């Protein structure tokens, strides 16, 4: 465990995005609209944070068309899962000291 938290994860909206995705069965993705409802963020705000997470390799973004409508699906990567687990360990470490 590092002494300082991962600054990519250490942000409320990004943290909720990773937590929401970690709750899914392995390999499953979440629709952008549904994710927005879960983390309670605006479209622009959530989009920016997902771009940050994607840049760090913590999530994968897949865009396609579903029933003739554009759809964006987000999936947690192995790296993202590990980053969230490390962050949770960091928090537990604070509580255990």
């Amino acid at each position: 465990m590092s002494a300082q938290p991962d600054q990519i994860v250490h942000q409320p909206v990004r943290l909720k995005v990773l937590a929401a995705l970690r709750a899914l069965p392995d390999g499953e993705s979440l629709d952008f609209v549904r994710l927005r409802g879960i983390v309670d963020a605006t479209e622009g705000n959530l989009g920016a944070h997902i771009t940050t997470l994607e840049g760090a390799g913590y999530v994968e973004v897949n865009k396609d068309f579903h029933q003739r409508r554009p759809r964006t699906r987000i999936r947690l990567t192995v790296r993202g899962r590990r980053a969230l687990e490390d962050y949770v360990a960091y928090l537990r470490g604070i509580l255990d000291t």
Partner: protein
Amino acid sequence: MAMPREEARETLRDILQTEQKSRKLHGYRKASPHLILWGIIWVIGYGGTFLRPQWLQAWPVLSLLGIAGSVVIARRMADASRRDWRGFATGITIFAFIAAFFAVTGPLSTLAISATIPLCVAFLYALFGIWTNSTRLLVTGAVLGALVVIGFFALPRYFQLWMAAVGGGGLILGGIWMRGL
């Protein structure tokens, strides 16, 4: 500077709450098309039996169609890497249980047969709700069970129509509601 303990505690709580919310909504999204499908099957089966009692014979076929439909829905919703045999096996197990149940009980009245299956479904919903911490599923099971018993005793002549409306209609409305969450 290290994070204060209180902030760490609140952040962990936020993570847990977000995971629970996500898991619950994921479950609703998965269940929604199945509820709609089985609602349609109930409307056809019970509505048909109300109009023509010999339609009772069509239930095994309707049930197998429902199982096949549920398997197709599950395969479409699952990512390719996660497709497995458990959904199909669950459907066949339930079908085999119901068939064996009626085989050992011997001939029952149309009314008793029509009430037994939805009572089993209500029982399964309630159990699934208890074990997955889903209040909605638990309430759905309890309400469905109560509606079956009420219809059985209070409206025996119109029981099939009652089940088509409140059972089938309820499943369809419940599925549409879950889809929008």
